[in-house]
């Protein structure tokens, strides 16, 4: 079923891709932001760290 025609279908596909990016990009930033060492919500982070990775327990 293609009531809108193939040209409109292409534009619609582009729109849907843009919309999916709109849905995903803000969430994708969160894992990236977890490496931020600053107290401010600055981007890109000036200092990166991996403090959230726990150190293995010492024997």
């Amino acid at each position, binding site marked *: 079923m293609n*009531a809108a025609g193939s040209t*409109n279908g292409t534009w619609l596909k582009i729109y849907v891709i843009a*919309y999916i990016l709109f849905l995903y*990009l803000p969430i994708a930033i*969160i894992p990236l932001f977890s490496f931020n060492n600053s107290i401010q*919500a600055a981007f890109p982070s000036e200092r990166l760290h991996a403090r959230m990775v726990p150190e293995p327990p010492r024997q």
Partner: protein
Amino acid sequence: MSVSIKPGYALPAASERRRRLFDVGMSAPGALTTSVLVLFALGIVLFLGFRTNDGPLLGGGFTLSNFTAALSDPLYATVILRSLAIAGFVTLVTIVTAYPVAYYLAFHAGKHRGLLLFVVTLPFWTSYLLRVFAWKVVLAYNGVLNSALLTTGITSEPILAFLNTPAAVVVTLAHAYAAFAILPIYVALENVPRSLIEAAEDLGAHPAAIFRRIILPISMPGVMAAALVVFVPTVGDYVTPALVGGPNSTMIGSMIQAQFGKANDWPFGAALSVIVMLVILVVVLAARFADKHLGSRT
């Protein structure tokens, strides 16, 4: 031997009793949940709204002063109107942007429909608070958007106007409630009879006319359902205005939360909640009336 069933045939008493017991058993969980979790909670809020704030948790005596104070103070009327305006704008933006996605899913996605539905709903597996905070990182003074604008040379210094504005609240809420708009519209579009569209195409109707005369009217119940699902929780939202909104974006949910929190005036907060519920009820009834009488169907 032939068995004939009389028109007025009734089940034996024991079977009838078992059927009634089964009906009661099946409806009991829903009835219990509705009465305890919804009606009882609403009853407590209504009860608290008429109590005085003089020490005990449930107030000391009955009064109308909470309602008269809330209705006579122009501040609350302003904030309620602002909440309705922001929620209305969020609903409009969410539905206008979600409709093409639902349309694509219903008419163009083909064998990828299931995968696309999964992709569209996947972001909503993450916490609502996390998604709102993500927008704070995007819109902040040193955030992603300003960094991108500076890097590409579009602006020479960060723009202050992204965060702490009503626009930030609208964008964040439109993102937060996107799936709640896409799914009901998609279901409504799925129910559009393909034979009607094919008949219109065979008769030479323009795609725009097919959309305007057939698809849009039949999908309107889905649009109305989506509008309600987005509008009602958005009016009372307080997390998003608190995180990405500024002083001009304070919504009634924040004021109610303040009454139950810092102000420690539960009866006044309950009265505000009751007023907001009544306002939402009036808006929803007006929308239903408009949908029924002003012709959403052709």
